[in-house]
């Protein structure tokens, strides 16, 4: 019997994820001894843990140029630039998610310590999604990521909307996990391995069982499509995003989506370069439909959370545009770095937009209709300015992170257009639907600046935690928008070199 040695385990390479996993278990126990009225301490402890993990990750990123890619757990896990970058995104979104919840949960009267532990559990799952180099690891990470999110969406126990959100998300999520596992089983049946490199090697060698592996790949696309809310697997998104507590909605609209894409890009690019034409066409079709459906449906929404849900579907479509360019081996690296950069901008901007929604939401959960933004520029000028920045960024207008992200994504699609006319079409649809999206994003801006609101409208006080989250996301959106505009080529080159 082969017993793994310490060298093959290479635990040091996955130290950040291990630290966070151990810390989360500890936090769950420690939280039991923190009295109910002091649950903010749990939140601070959670941020402390994420910070410690961030330090470990920072050390790793610092050493990355010297050490290069590493394997751990005997090849089940790979630590490369891609994984390091994504882990950074996950830690950032978890810290911001907790900062927002610290203000939001006590107001809604649902502050329980488990909320913070569950966010950490999800983050551990996301980190392993990015690290995974084997379909089984992807699956376990996917479950570790999803199950806490089901609980988070149902966190307002006595609210039927939240219950509905949790139940719907759980049933459809469990269903999609089943698709994913079935896909893994078929790929194993077709190739005899679940390792991503192994699958690629078998597919490159002989096409004997290609149909079986291809069907399996399609099922993986279905399973992960659910997680990232791509058409036609987006049905759960509006209801879940609207019903879940806003803090959880904001967190899962970035955490789950980015993690889903982390696995999707890694699996398709690493394991299925041999079937690139097949999945390339599929991804293009899904991307076009997702962008059209998300943007067009968002126009008719009157609830801000629901509108942001459809907008998050649309943004999944934009990331798929980058992925569709990754079907050409020479562009795979550029395409995945474009997707990574887009996910970073989307994470910061979308979390910021939800932080603003939280800032105007009333204690009973109402007050998040688009009408409720009326007159915000007069009563809360700073918050309105933040929202303006986030809306500009989500639309993709200049001097914002979103514009740079979209530039990378559509840029790589246009680079690939010489290889296949479909890439040109997908890029054109992307640009056109971005124009459509301006309509509903700018409607909020119109409401805030042009319309007079209720003079007596009372907004909840913004506590330091939410203020910090707003400041970080607002400044982050601007910095990501400004710096690459100045140093555009250098940034792109650095991104590609680092991955």
């Amino acid at each position, binding site marked *: 019997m082969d*017993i*793994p040695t310490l060298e093959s385990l290479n635990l040091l390479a996955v130290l950040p994820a291990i630290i966070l996993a151990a810390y989360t278990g500890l936090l*769950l126990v420690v939280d*039991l001894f923190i009295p109910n009225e002091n649950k903010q301490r749990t939140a601070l402890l959670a941020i402390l843990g994420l910070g410690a993990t961030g330090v470990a990750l920072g050390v790793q990123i610092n050493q990355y140029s010297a050490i290069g890619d590493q394997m751990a757990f005997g090849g089940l896990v790979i630590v490369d630039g891609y994984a390091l970058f994504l882990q950074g995104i996950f830690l950032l979104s978890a810290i911001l998610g907790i900062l927002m919840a610290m203000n939001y949960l006590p107001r809604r009267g649902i502050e329980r310590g488990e909320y913070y532990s569950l966010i950490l559990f999800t983050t551990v799952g996301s980190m392993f999604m990015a690290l995974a180099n084997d379909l089984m690891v992807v699956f376990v990470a996917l479950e570790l990521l999803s199950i806490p999110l089901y609980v988070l969406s149902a966190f307002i126990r006595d609210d039927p909307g939240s219950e509905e959100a949790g139940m719907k998300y759980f049933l459809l999520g469990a269903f999609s996990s089943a698709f994913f596992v079935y896909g893994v089983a078929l790929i194993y049946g077709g190739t*005899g391995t679940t390792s991503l490199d192994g699958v690629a090697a078998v597919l490159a060698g002989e096409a004997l*069982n290609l149909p079986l592996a291809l069907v399996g790949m399609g099922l993986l696309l279905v399973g992960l499509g659910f997680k990232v809310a791509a058409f036609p697997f987006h049905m759960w998104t509006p209801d879940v995003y609207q019903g879940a507590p806003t803090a959880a909605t904001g967190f899962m609209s970035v955490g789950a989506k980015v993690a889903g894409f982390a696995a999707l890009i890694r699996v398709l690019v690493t394991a299925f370069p041999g079937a690139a034409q097949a999945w390339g066409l599929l991804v293009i079709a899904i991307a076009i439909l997702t962008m059209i459906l998300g943007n067009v449906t968002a126009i008719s929404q009157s609830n801000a959370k629901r509108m942001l849900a459809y907008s998050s579907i649309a943004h999944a479509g934009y990331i798929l545009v980058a992925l569709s360019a990754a079907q050409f081996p020479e562009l795979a690296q550029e395409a995945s770095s474009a997707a990574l950069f887009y996910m970073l901008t989307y994470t910061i901007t979308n979390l910021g937009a939800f932080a603003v929604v939280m800032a105007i939401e009333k204690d009973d959960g109402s007050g998040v209709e688009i009408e409720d933004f009326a007159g915000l520029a007069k009563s809360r000028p700073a918050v309105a300015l933040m929202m303006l920045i986030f809306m500009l960024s989500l639309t993709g207008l200049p001097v914002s992170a979103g514009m740079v992200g979209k530039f990378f994504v559509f840029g790589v699609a246009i680079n690939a257009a010489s290889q296949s006319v479909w890439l040109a079409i997908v890029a054109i649809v992307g640009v056109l639907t971005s124009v459509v999206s301006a309509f509903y994003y700018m409607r909020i801006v119109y409401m805030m600046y042009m319309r007079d609101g209720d003079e007596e409208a009372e907004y909840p006080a913004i506590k330091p935690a939410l203020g910090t989250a707003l400041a970080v996301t607002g400044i982050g959106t601007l910095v990501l928008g400004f710096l690459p505009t100045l140093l555009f080529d250098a940034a792109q080159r650095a991104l590609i070199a680092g991955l």
Partner: protein
Amino acid sequence: MLIEQYLPIAILLAIAIVLSLIVVFISRIMGPFRPTAKKLSPYESGMTPMGPAVRRFPVKFYLVAVLFILFDVEVIFLLPYSILVQDLGVYGLITVSIFLTVLTIGFIYEWKKGALEWE
């Protein structure tokens, strides 16, 4: 892998299906069938049936069932480990310890949350 290698499994499946069909229906076909009200009533260890079978029961039983899984899974993994304890050596011991620690965290959590108390 060739499809012929699955042949024994297919034969086993066919035998299982045919055999179970025979077992279920042979007594119905061969034996006499003279129903009375008593014979058709559900079997409750010879007692006279009382009340409907679908009854309301406390939701706490679901909690107990979920908590049971914690220890159920523990045993499922410990049993094969106990056979390979010698071969796996220190590596196995550490791995299983980590697994048990995680389960213990869950146990401490349910205990402190009062999930083990009935009232």
